[in-house]
């Protein structure tokens, strides 16, 4: 994380300018200090792709990348993101000449989503995670996915999709 210049105290009552690089594009909005990054992205900048499922850090729906690192937008203040690079689900295909990425395509093929509410967060976690660990085992992958709740899929399609793009086989049922 780059050291930043000191700010004077940002007062509670005022809205303060917050500038971020959102999916490669500089964007500025305004935020009270208490505004959550998730609300800032969705309602101030209109980037609705990031979803909100719990606002207490457990469900993972709001996961975005800040300077490349996957984190909870609901546990981040907008003012904390000032000066940072934020990547959200909207940027994935934008960064891929408008086509869905291999990971997104694999999600579709393997029916890794139903209502899709958890999907953006999972994709953002995965893009960070796979950068660091390009060929996870199924166990490692599931361990990482435990930071996301999906109520629709039972996770099987998600695991299959990731194993497909990373070129590994899925352990379906190892025993008997």
């Amino acid at each position, binding site marked *: 994380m780059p050291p930043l210049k000191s*700010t004077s105290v940002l007062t509670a009552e005022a809205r303060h300018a917050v500038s971020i690089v959102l999916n490669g594009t500089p964007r500025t909005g305004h935020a009270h200090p208490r505004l959550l990054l998730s609300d800032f992205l969705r309602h101030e900048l209109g980037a609705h792709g990031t979803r909100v499922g719990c606002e207490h850090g457990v469900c*993972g729906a709001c996961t975005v990348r800040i300077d490349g*690192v996957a984190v909870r937008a609901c546990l981040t*203040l907008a003012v904390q993101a000032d000066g940072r690079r934020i990547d959200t689900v909207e940027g994935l295909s934008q960064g891929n000449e408008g086509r869905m990425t291999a990971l997104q395509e694999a999600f579709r093929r393997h029916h890794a989503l139903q209502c899709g509410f958890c999907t953006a967060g999972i994709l953002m*976690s995965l893009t960070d*995670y796979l950068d660091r660990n390009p060929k996870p085992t199924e166990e490692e992958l599931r361990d990482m996915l435990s930071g996301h709740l999906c109520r629709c899929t039972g996770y099987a399609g998600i695991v299959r999709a990731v194993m497909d793009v990373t070129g590994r086989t899925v352990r379906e049922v190892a025993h008997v």
Partner: protein
Amino acid sequence: MKPAPFDYLRPATVAEALAALADGGDDARVIAGGQSLMPMLNMRLVQPRLLIDLGRLEELRTLRAADGWLTVGAAVTQAEVLARPTLVEEVPLLAAALPWVGHFQTRNRGTLCGSVAHADPSAETPLCLVATGGEVVLRNAKRRRTVAAADFFLGPLTTVKAADEIVECVRFPLARRGSGHAFREQSMRHGDFAIAACAATVNGDHASLAVGGVAERPTMRSWPLVDGRLPPDLDGALNAFAWDLGGDDDQHATARYRRDLVRRIGRTVLEEALSCRR
């Protein structure tokens, strides 16, 4: 579920942070990774007037092994410590326990010092700090003091840290030759806070077991080795320890279950620690 209003300060130096903290008194609160504080802010369980962000202070980014200690500064994340290739040799217990702290995504921001300051009785980092005989370095605008981990934690969310102090860093003693370590916990789901977490160390002529999630704070007990082996009445000793820890019922587990885990997992980790001495 939105926070109550507060002023926000991103200080340029630790000194500025400490001055603001001293000024703010009880109404000021520091935020590090925010992985415990932000949920409490969102639920309005905590309503500070001023939030002081330590997250981007370069001075607090110390992560260093020297003079027998691994020092971890207040802005260092759990993920960064876990990614340290030499951690397994330096503080093997921490290397074993950190993957149990939350999830990939929360470790990307959560700090070790934040976890220690927060003092959740089930948290793994405070447990490791107690188990290894670590220290907490506290600092306010005027002075710095060092508190042994065993004396730092008082109860749930309660420590000896004064309102004007920050945890500047925590220090884990580097593992000595011939020591052994083992960690295990039982939680409801992967990544949940522990129902009971057991950290065993074998050092020189004694074996210790530290337990989190049962009593109000991480608690350790030591026994002398007998001919290089665990004490003959280990079951009795563990039972006494379990009863002293007590434990509470909650919706997921009973106090009795927690004590059962101390008796059973406690033995397992002690045996493991003894057998993996290097």
